[in-house]
């Protein structure tokens, strides 16, 4: 375990699927050769295929202290990046319509807003995903080159590009499939939790740009930080697939959706529009307790009381949502 641990909480009730975080990340980090298909941050519709396709059913992670097998996703699972023939249409006077090439067959956010059906009602929600900067990273254990390390000062997991040889054991080991291989450089890459920004006291680009204000960032071990309060004090944020054993440091406030049509007033646990089984699949059985707690907070507010939890989740300003303290995590020399 690292001396400190940066963490992020995302309130899924507030995510509008606008992909501003995705673009903020892409413009900053993956606008280079070989990185077209890389989305260190992506937002996927759930239930859905995800990115890469069916990543949640491929494998990886830990079981009984041992790494679990997994195939390597192929480019078909990511979708081959396509370009449009603007030059021919606009500059060379060809009359053909503007068309993408190669023909798109899959891509990031491919099944946006499709979701699922619960009896006769459609349901879906958005799941933004970055690297979980796990406490026990399977990728780190899988790398025979010792190219992956977890920064002792802040718990951020990074790939040393000088040591990486592109063996891709890490991609197989990661149960969240959040590492990408760059064939141009022959090395693998992943989310760096914007550590160069954090070191200057700036919050992650995805969190800074989020119009829904759903991201909270700080040190998990800092009692002043919003992530500490949401995860450890109020206990209303859960990691994704906790049973995969890596102990993620990205947490989600589960979607607190309304009950089904014509059942207003009922508890989500009584008649959920979003099948509870699916939330349990994503966040583990503790999600029921979290929803119960959230429901109690909502009731308190609806009855005219003040809910500190809801006030925190509203996150009106950056000071509430972000607690970046570079001086706390300086490397001691």
């Amino acid at each position, binding site marked *: 375990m690292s001396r400190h641990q940066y963490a992020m909480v995302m309130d899924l009730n507030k995510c509008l699927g606008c992909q501003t975080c995705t673009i903020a990340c892409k413009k900053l980090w993956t606008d280079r050769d070989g990185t077209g298909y890389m989305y260190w941050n992506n937002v996927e519709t759930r239930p859905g295929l995800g990115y890469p396709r069916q990543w949640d059913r491929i494998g990886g992670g830990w079981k009984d202290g041992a790494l679990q097998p997994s195939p390597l996703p192929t480019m078909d699972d990511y979708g081959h990046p396509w370009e449009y023939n603007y030059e021919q249409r606009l500059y060379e006077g060809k009359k053909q319509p503007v068309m993408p090439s190669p023909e798109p067959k899959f891509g990031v956010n491919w099944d946006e807003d499709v979701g699922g059906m619960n009896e006769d009602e459609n349901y879906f929600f958005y799941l933004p995903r970055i690297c979980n900067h796990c406490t026990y990273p399977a990728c780190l254990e899988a790398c*025979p080159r010792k190219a992956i390390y977890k920064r002792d000062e802040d718990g951020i997991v990074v790939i040393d590009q*000088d040591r990486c040889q592109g063996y*891709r054991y890490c991609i197989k080991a990661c149960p969240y499939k959040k590492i990408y291989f760059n064939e141009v450089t022959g090395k693998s890459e992943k989310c760096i939790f914007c550590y160069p920004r954090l070191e200057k006291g700036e919050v992650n680009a995805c969190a800074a740009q989020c119009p829904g204000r759903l991201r909270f960032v700080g040190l998990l071990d800092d009692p002043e930080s919003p992530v500490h309060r949401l995860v450890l004090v109020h206990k209303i944020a859960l990691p994704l697939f906790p049973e995969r054993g890596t102990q993620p440091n990205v947490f989600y406030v589960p979607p607190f959706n309304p009950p089904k049509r014509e059942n207003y007033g009922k508890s989500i646990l009584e008649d959920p529009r979003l099948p509870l089984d699916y939330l349990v699949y994503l966040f583990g059985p503790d999600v029921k307790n979290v929803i119960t707690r959230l429901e109690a907070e909502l009731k308190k507010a609806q009855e005219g009381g003040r809910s500190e939890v809801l006030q925190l989740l509203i996150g009106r300003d950056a000071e509430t949502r972000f607690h970046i303290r570079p001086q706390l995590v300086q490397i001691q020399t």
Partner: protein
Amino acid sequence: MRTPRLAMILFVCSLFPASVAQTEKKSSAGQALSVAAVSATADTLLREGQAQWNQIAVKRVALNRTPPLFDTDEPTTLEISGVDVRVARVSGNLLVQLSWRDPTQDAVTLAAVPDSPPEIRFRKVQTEANDRFFDAAAVMVPAKPGARAVYPSLQMGDADDPVEIYYWNATRGAMLMQAQGRGTTKRTGQGFPANSVYANGQWNVVFELPDLPTGTPVAFAVWNGSQKDRDGRKYFSVWQVLE
């Protein structure tokens, strides 16, 4: 990871006489590899010298397949049982040709990356595939050349006896690496002259090394891309001693 590593050590040790199986090292009663003195130039041998190479005595060096290194590795089979080695000393260089049968040529030409920085270009070079691995081969020599009582560890040398690895990759070319034990291999950033020809289901790869004195041990490795070889997932020989 401890169990597979132990299995690896035991497997490598099992290749050697029981008396030295306690350590990773081996006494120098090795396998001889003759070095031919030839009149052809290094450049001829490197670029177009198959006729000359054919006049040089060939030694068939047996290749071993590493056992699965990780619990999660898929099982694998021995598809390449040996490599034909020819060694010639030419004007201060040692030229080594490795030839082996491989029905699949796992090599591609990657798209050229323009000189201009990506941020000023509208189009970027794209990753075409993320699950392909390429054929490769390597010659490992001690960083301190010469005869010795004890060889470096076959697993990329050791702290006392580091190694240099002349690594050739069918797609990414030749690069010189250094190592002092398993997991320590690093690129030096330097290349070295190498040439490869794939024809009729066979690789012929020529490595140009600096000259090495008689008695220096050398070892060889082959990676088969179609078997998803990379890292320690490969074929390897035991040390051969230059005569």
